[in-house]
């Protein structure tokens, strides 16, 4: 934690707040995110509604707080899925015979030529909208990021002295893979996953904005933006706050991820 302490503190505090919003949104706001009150529609930020109210009179603060749960869980679920499959596929490629490794490696390459969001959109276009489909689409688009790193690490580890030594102990391939190869290829993953989580959140919001994700009236930041854009000229707050939430989340995750990356550069975490 040497150097710029503020650089850790600010994103750290914001991410903690975010975690709280996901875990216990009721602690941050008393209002119901779905309770509409047409009489109170499009009220500017102020005493009753700190972030104002939207076109149906729902409290924007409550919707942003409760929306964290949707947006973040899409991001987390997609990242977990992508990391798990990426690690397994990368490991499989790294340990496979050459032809299979080539086939897997080239498919990772092809997947990574397409921008993540475009690829995810393509997949959702095939599978149809829905939260699960969005998670699946984002995960598939991110798999190559993890798989390529793990594959390269696997090549290093499988030729290492300690793996060779384990062979001379008479340990089975499975035991060596589980006991030595897998734990030693995971080194860069936590850092990559932190950055990847930011990307997944933004991709999730993007797809929701296009109407592919959680369906109304669910509060989701991307979906809120989408609804709000019709009122942008009369009620900036309806779009501004969910937009700010997305931006801050992604910036914080990326800053933390990059900082971790710089700290661990050149050595295994």
């Amino acid at each position: 934690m040497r150097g710029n302490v503020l650089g850790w503190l600010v994103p750290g505090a914001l991410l903690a707040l975010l975690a709280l919003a996901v875990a216990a949104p009721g602690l941050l706001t008393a209002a119901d995110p779905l309770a509409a009150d047409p009489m109170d529609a499009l009220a500017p930020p102020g005493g009753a509604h700190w972030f104002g109210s939207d076109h149906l009179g729902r409290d924007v603060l409550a919707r942003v707080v409760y929306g964290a749960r949707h947006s973040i869980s899409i991001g987390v679920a997609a990242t977990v899925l992508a990391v798990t499959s990426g690690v397994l596929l990368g490991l499989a490629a790294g340990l496979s015979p050459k032809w299979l490794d080539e086939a897997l490696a080239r498919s990772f390459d092809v997947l990574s030529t397409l921008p993540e969001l475009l690829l995810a959109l393509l997949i959702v276009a095939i599978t149809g909208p829905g939260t699960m489909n969005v998670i699946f689409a984002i995960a598939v688009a991110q798999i190559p990021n993890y798989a390529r790193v793990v594959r390269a690490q696997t090549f290093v580890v499988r030729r290492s002295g300690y793996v060779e030594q384990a062979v001379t102990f008479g340990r089975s391939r499975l035991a060596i893979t589980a006991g030595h190869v897998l734990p030693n290829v995971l080194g860069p993953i936590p850092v990559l996953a932190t950055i990847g989580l930011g990307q997944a959140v933004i991709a999730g919001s993007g797809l929701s904005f296009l109407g592919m994700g959680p369906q109304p009236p669910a509060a989701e930041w991307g979906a809120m933006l989408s609804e709000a854009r019709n009122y942008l000229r009369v009620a900036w707050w309806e779009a501004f706050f969910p937009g700010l939430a997305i931006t801050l989340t992604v910036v914080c995750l990326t800053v933390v991820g990059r900082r971790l990356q710089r700290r661990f550069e050149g050595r295994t975490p």
Partner: protein
Amino acid sequence: MTSLVTVEDLRVSFGGAEVVGGISLSVAPGECVAIVGESGSGKSVTARTLLGLAGPGSEVRAGAFRVSGGDALAFTPADWRRLRGGFAGLVLQDALVSLDPLRTVGAEIAEVLAVHDVVPRARRADRVLELLDAVGVPEPATRAGQYPHQLSGGLRQRALIASAIAADPPLIIADEPTTALDVTVQAQILRLLAERRAAGTALLLISHDLAVVASIADRILVMKDGRIVEEGPASDVLSAPAHDYTRALLAAVPSAASRGTRLTTGAPRARATPDLSARVLAGTGLARSYGSRRVVHDVFFTLHAGETLGVVGESGSGKTTLARLVLGLLEPGAGQVTLHGQPWSRRPERARRPLRPRIQLVSQNPLDSFDPRHTVGRLIAEPLRLPRAGRRERVLDLLARVGLPPGTAARHPRELSGGQRQRVAIARALGPRPDVLVCDEPVSALDVSIQAQVLDLLADIQDEYGTAMVFISHDLGVVHHVADRVLVMKDGRVVEEGDVTEVFARPRDPYTRALVASVPRPARADAAWIKPGAGR
């Protein structure tokens, strides 16, 4: 002109910790002075300080410090820069890190010529070729255009020496210049340095190996813990060492004379005679190629219970490939390895796996062979097939057997010294009670005295358990000390084989003869002062 470099009461400290504690030395023109000591003795720091390269965070004090007739304590960085290369050339151990990987060897040498303005620009290219020729690089015109990684270790070291002498300095400082090299190449480099000295260049040689400096030094300074414990003319220091530490250093050098004794104490070894009726391991017609390159070709060998088979040869002779064939890590292209008369290399992996603990490996660099996440205790426990309850006890037994305290089990190998790591590697290999221990250069990364301890440990283990050993080394002295029989390998073939004393005393093959002739001779064999118990 009197001396090139004079220091009195030189002290160098880093953050309050004194690394060099008050040493005095001087180097006269045309003289060869050697500083001998182990890692951490402060010898390299001393050498670097003489060039103003003590490093960041260092504090240098001295009663007197004169370099090239000037007061070095008052030198500015610019003064130092003029002296480096111009007054003193520096040759380091590993030319691969000392030479810029992105520049050709020729460009590297030309830079020295340009900086010190030795010859006019138009003559520089010619001068580079002359220098490469002078240090014995064949085809200098081709070599000058090559990058460091394209050259062999010996050629790289020559190129580095060429750049060190490019500005024709009156002094060369060489820090372990031959440590990474094979014996024959080492002999060539030492000869080259001796030639430079004959031509009038003074030489300050730093080494951990007394045998290396014996052939070339006029005066020897023995350093320990930042101080000089003994100094004097080379012949005196080598034949009649006054200090216990020097004696221990000399006694620790394994050689023909030390056979059958313990290196650390000089006491005779309680050796069980190898059981020549029990053939443990045999190789018949072994061959292996990588692509079209034959790495091992037509190798036959046998190993009996309790016997040590030495394998000597230079880098690239196929020693390590042979070890991998023996360990069953590589399938031979032709021929086979048998264990206790049963097929080993031709056994399917599934059937071989349960037998694998019979043959264990101790490698050159233990850190590479340890999973970086594991503690010593976990590393040693890995090959043991024991229920959890008995495991810890057995790990502690093994640690005690190799002379490590029980507390080591909880530590990470990174925190241990090189010698301790090698002990851990040996403890781990002993765990499954193997019939054969394959030792691939187990001591070549260690200082002489640590090497002596590890060799003694291996000998004790053999005496106690009757383990057969395949002992691979490029160091003939080490092999002569430990082995009963020896295979001499060159370009993947066995050029000579037989009883170790016989082969080294009366080599039949010209290559073996060249190898034996290249070994630097310490004075031990004829030294009268060696008594059991000397030095420790």
